[in-house]
């Protein structure tokens, strides 16, 4: 029995060493080769999740690159943006999507549940520090172990195929849903009882939002929070009072462009919280004009943008 236990322990230690090497060596190699380069003329970036991914079509906006990705919590946005800023010194402004669902507890799931870990961890584990990994491991240990396995194989694949690019071209802003889908969503939303105000907050998401803001400031970048257009029937607005309170208490020093009530009719929406291709084109063309206006990106651009939004009619575009 002792002999069996001794050999089992020895084999387990050997396996642990091999597993650690399988994880660490590729990460170490890739950290020096990772490519987060954006087009050379990029002065502004947009980071966030699917709301900004769908709303901002950077092909209509000069000098702006949209690096938002669906399902991305601030934990991963922070890691990505840190690398982007390192490799793209031309960036002057960082637009950060800050909307209602990003303060909600569901963002904890986006950070460490199995489904999101399987997708995000393999991509960004290379850039995580010990504290970041500990956060994941302490909240979902089995997911953490499983994701390290996925991460290891993806990293080895990247090395073998010499694929060091980490920036995906934004695709979701090409969504063009069935217009009747939106009609049925609106009907459903009207019928539904108002959801209870969700008083919960995702502390981890807000912590990493804060880290992201501090990082940008430290790098001398201008930080502007944005909220992409939302349909008035969007159920996620149920925590609006908490959202506004939080923004005023914690982020009052930051400029804030609130496009949530941007004047767009139903034909511009894919669903109640995402614009479709037409909506993205409308908003982006308008935003391009704003950014080219010398009044914008001055120190008090918030009022300017608000007033321009009020002047906007869809006919203009």
């Amino acid at each position, binding site marked *: *029995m002792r*002999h*069996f236990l001794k050999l*089992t322990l020895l*084999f387990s230690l*050997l*396996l642990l060493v*091999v*597993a650690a090497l*399988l994880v660490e060596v590729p990460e170490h190699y890739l950290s020096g080769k990772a490519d987060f380069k954006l087009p050379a003329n990029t002065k502004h970036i947009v980071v966030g999740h699917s709301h900004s991914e769908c709303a901002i079509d950077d092909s209509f906006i000069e000098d702006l690159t949209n690096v938002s990705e669906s399902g991305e919590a601030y934990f991963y946005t922070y890691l990505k943006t840190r690398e982007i800023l390192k490799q793209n010194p031309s960036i002057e402004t960082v637009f950060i999507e800050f909307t209602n669902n990003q303060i909600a507890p569901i963002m904890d799931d986006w950070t460490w549940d*199995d489904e999101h870990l*399987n997708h995000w961890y393999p991509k960004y584990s290379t850039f995580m520090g010990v504290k970041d990994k500990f956060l994941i491991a302490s909240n979902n*240990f*089995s997911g953490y*172990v*499983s994701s390290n*396995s*996925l991460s*290891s*194989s993806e990293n*080895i694949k990247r090395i073998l195929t010499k694929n060091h690019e980490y920036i995906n071209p934004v695709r979701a802003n090409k969504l063009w849903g069935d217009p009747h889908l939106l009609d049925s969503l609106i009907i459903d939303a009207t019928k539904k009882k108002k959801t209870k105000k969700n008083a919960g907050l995702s502390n981890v998401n807000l912590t990493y939002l804060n880290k992201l803001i501090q990082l940008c400031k430290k790098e001398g970048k201008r930080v502007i929070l944005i909220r992409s257009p939302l349909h008035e029937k969007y159920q996620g607005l149920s925590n609006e009072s908490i959202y506004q309170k939080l923004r005023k208490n914690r982020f009052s020093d930051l400029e804030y462009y609130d496009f949530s009530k941007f004047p767009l009719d139903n034909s511009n929406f894919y669903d109640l919280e995402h614009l479709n291709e037409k909506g993205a084109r409308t908003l982006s063309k308008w935003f391009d004009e704003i950014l080219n206006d010398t009044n914008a990106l001055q120190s008090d651009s918030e009022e300017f943008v608000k007033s321009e939004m009020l002047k906007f009619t869809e006919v203009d575009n």
Partner: protein
Amino acid sequence: MLFNSIDFAVFLPIVFILYWFVANKNLSLQNALIVAASYLFYGWWDWRFLILILSSTLIDYFVGRGLATQEDKFRRKVLLWTSIFINLGVLAVFKYFNFFIDNFISAFSLFGVEMKANSLNIILPVGISFYTFQTLSYSIDVYRRKLKPTKDFIAFSAFVSFFPQLVAGPIERASNLLPQFYAKRNFDYSRAVDGMRQILWGLFKKIVIADNCAEYANIIFNNSADYSGSTLVLGAVLFAFQIYGDFSGYSDIAIGTSRLFGFDLKQNFNFPYFSRDIAEFWRRWHISLSTWFRDYVYIPLGGSRGGIWMKVRNTFIIFIISGFWHGANWTFIVWGALNAVYFLPLLLSNNNRVNIDTVAKGKYLPSIKDLGLILLTFSLTVFAWIFFRADNMEHAISYISSMYSSTLFSLPYIFEPQTGLQIIPKTILVLVAFFVFIEWIGRDGQFALSGIVNLKKRAFRWSIYLTLCVMIILFHGKQQEFIYFQF
């Protein structure tokens, strides 16, 4: 808790240490620890399941005690049928109630009679199909006087709830497993090492083969209308390896784990995809279930004795019941019936026991004839698996009709979920080929890796184990639940 989970990785060593260092003092303590660990293992899914397994244990224990003292034939039959009725009744309620209600309503609606009935919104307790059959085998064997009923309630509870095989088999016969609880187990080094080896191979089959095949099989089956005939064939083949890797992998882990605790369970899969005919396939696939049906349903019905129509009737009954055991859906029934159709010609022509020995025994490669027979048998089983996997009959029929189209001979491809690009899943095909190669080399043993014990140098053996572990780490598919947990 799943076998391939952190929970089990923590649970198993703790139970192992307690079993061999604390409970090793005496037999009762060993068995009691098995019961406690098994109830913890089972309750991990849902504590309410424990009520069912405890009830099943109590009923069959007391039925056994009753049969021990009862000589009157009628009363013995009453006791037996009490056990059968309650065990199958529980199974019927949890597993088949909604199926019967829905079909009852559909049947009446054909005659223009609209009925309303409430379906039950209940969870199917994990493993119920397995342990009810296990306890039934005890009652039946005691009734037939093939087995002495036990007085030892702890040993009997341990037999019913034994955690390695509780939720997905092998379905153990009381005559094999129960006596192992009557004697104190002593640690056997080579048995334990062989057990670890079998666990490793089971994990490889489940994590590398089954979970990776599942990813692509699911994409193809869930979007079958979008794919070419050749891709649908690929989907069916991948499902064949998914279900084999999943189920036989679980059995390997169950048998290997049992060996760590000094128990020997029966082999449940004997390299079925190397079968040369369907009869051989059914002697090698899910052996514990097929022998259960043979001994407790087929033979009492008359088996292969009697005229042709009796043989045909019994064969269809056995395969359809076997299909129905798997789930409350017409697809499982059709799957069973199809296997009956495959089997009958062999039975009626007395060719069902032609291929008994291991294929190409002592040789490296099969003969051309054997290879052809293997491929033919494999094709027939893959075709039948389409019904097993399909969501319903409409899905199965549309899958098959789309398969046999002009695109049957085009290059298969899958739409990669994240990019939408067309890809050929080369990695999984290479893994499956590697897997088939290892299984072929080890086909004479209890499991593919059992022959490794013949390698003298520990360094060689460990390098093989490490290679498999590295493959498990690198080719870790997205975790899928064991298919047979749903039965």
